[in-house]
């Protein structure tokens, strides 16, 4: 996984609640999805008109916002289906940080598996950020510092966000959970040994023919 330490660039306001992962990655693209081929279809129902042309009102289509690296979204962003493709798609569009009052839990977790930083902030703060991001035709720069856990706005306001130490380290160092856990496999083996006595029925499944 690549590292995420500093981020600097335009933030796009998307003030709509409950954007689900079906909107972010429509189902029809899932069967052939890879982390690299989704960005053209990300947010399709919002991004394109019925005839396939770009929707000029969608923020990421507007001049100045096309290269956004941060998305400031309405609450409960990424709710719905567990599809990790939603994160792949957003990341493929160049977005490495999403700010919202709240997130779908699975989406929130999936972000960290892909070096994307989700930031939860109170509703008033999110509203202020949207105002600041929306004012400037996308000309001003937001900054995120993962080590310091700060977000700096174009007007110079600095906001501290929550990030647990394990996730912070994983982002800073580009660490992967799987390798870590495999190193601790002896503990899983020990757990299973003991557990076989306590809950033998977990391990003795009937036969599948």
């Amino acid at each position, binding site marked *: 996984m690549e590292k995420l330490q500093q981020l600097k660039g335009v933030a796009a306001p998307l003030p709509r609640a409950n954007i689900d992962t079906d909107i972010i990655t429509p189902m029809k693209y899932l069967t052939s999805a890879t982390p690299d081929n989704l960005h053209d279809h990300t947010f399709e129902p919002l991004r394109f008109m019925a005839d396939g042309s770009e929707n000029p009102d969608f923020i990421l289509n507007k001049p100045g916002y096309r290269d956004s690296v941060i998305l400031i979204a309405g609450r409960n962003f990424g709710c719905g289906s567990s599809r990790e493709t939603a994160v792949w798609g957003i990341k493929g569009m160049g977005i490495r940080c999403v700010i919202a009052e709240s997130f779908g839990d*699975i989406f929130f977790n999936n972000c960290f598996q892909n070096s994307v930083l989700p930031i939860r902030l109170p509703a008033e703060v999110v509203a202020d950020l949207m105002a600041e991001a929306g004012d400037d035709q996308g000309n001003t720069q937001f900054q995120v510092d993962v080590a310091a856990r700060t977000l700096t706005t174009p007007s110079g306001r600095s906001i501290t966000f929550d990030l647990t130490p394990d996730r912070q380290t994983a982002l800073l160092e580009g660490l992967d959970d799987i390798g870590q856990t495999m190193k601790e496999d002896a503990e899983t083996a020990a757990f299973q040994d003991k557990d076989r006595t306590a809950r033998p029925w977990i391990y003795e499944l009937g036969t599948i023919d």
Partner: protein
Amino acid sequence: MTTAKTLFDKLWDSHVVRSLGENLDLLHVDRLLIHDLSGSRAMMDLNERGLTVRNPELCLSVPDHSVSSLPGRTLASSPNGERLGGALRDMSAAAGVPHYGIDHPNQGIVHVVGPETGFTLPGSLLVCGDSHTSTHGAMGALAWGIGSSELVHVLATQTIRQRRPGTMRINIDGELGAGVEAKDVILHIIGHLGVAAGIGYAVEYAGSTIRDMGIEERLTISNLSIEFGARMGMVAPDETTYEYLHDRPLVPKDAAWDTALEYWRGLPSDEDAVFDREVSFDAADIAPQITWGTSPGQTVAVTEEIPTPDSFVEAELRSNAETALEYMGLNPGDNIAGTKVDRVFIGSCTNSRLTDLRRAAAIAQGRQVAPGTTAWVVPGSGIVKSEAEAEGLHEIFLAAGFEWREPGCSQCVATNGEIVAPGERCVSTSNRNFVGRQGPKARTHLAGPAMAAAAAIAGEITDVRALPPIEGSE
């Protein structure tokens, strides 16, 4: 400090392999369900990384998302069936993962297959790369949906890193009115709490209404937990659970059953256990529901009017309602009943079990699907299908003009090419009415199986309780 524990606490604590600090634990995974959409992909990733499945005997793979529901189908009958279902079959065989393939009598939707085969057990921790894994919580299991990176992690290590959520108890007490089903209960709850109320919580459903329900109805309730943001939604195991499980193919037998039973009896929340949040509902307040929007929380009683955007105080909800009504092509202020429908879909991991099909069949019996309406019944699994056929339910459906199809996810998600056409309106017993869920520009109204069957007969959304009696009866 109290030592009283909730069902959730007991389940969680018994699976901690190691604490990783900050409320983060490494948990043992007892059961992994693998399906053709997320699972094939994850098994490929695993192979590419040169890793192997750590405990294949604790996994079960079944194709459901991509398979056709056409009678007489093969993997080749759907656009991606061969590629995804075939990959799942081959990789499962190579890894030694038990597999119910498309021709196996037990094939079906993962969330139907797990409980009915006894793969899902009370006291177990079960995950699957699918958000509706919350379904299995109805068996007294700790179950939730995971993303594809997490899925590779589970395959390789038989563990998962997880942050401990808060606890929420939802109490529903009293008797349900005539014609009111489990689906109505959970839609009513989501409509009242809002689609984000469960975020960060593991939910336990309790109260006399839940106790009085059969397992299949509880599965419907737990299934929709994720639709208000809760990844886990469980019901304490009880005699109903044990009776349901006894003698299912994969459950422990003989002495192992007795040991398990003793363990399971200790799982329900202690009398004085405290939950972080508690809410209560009165069963008597619940009417048959039908959604009007593009989020499961946008639901009304079938007797109500389509809401006007102005009726939402909050600006965000108001603009969501506006967009949803436009997409759905509905006129605010009109009665929701009387809205013409093109299609009816009875199926999905929410409502495709025997109890659901019996309820739908009771409405269909002796009646006819309205001209111009296409109605499908897609049983959740091969087991459901054969049980239903043994009771003659398929004959009732066929005589009434419904199609009787092969098991799978089908039109719930349309990954298999079975879509609702653009602009068409469908009453569906599934769990998501999202924009484009059943196909581009498809309009979905969620409802329970009886309401869906009634819509097929009437050719419009209608109150199942007010369906005209069959001529010559009574």
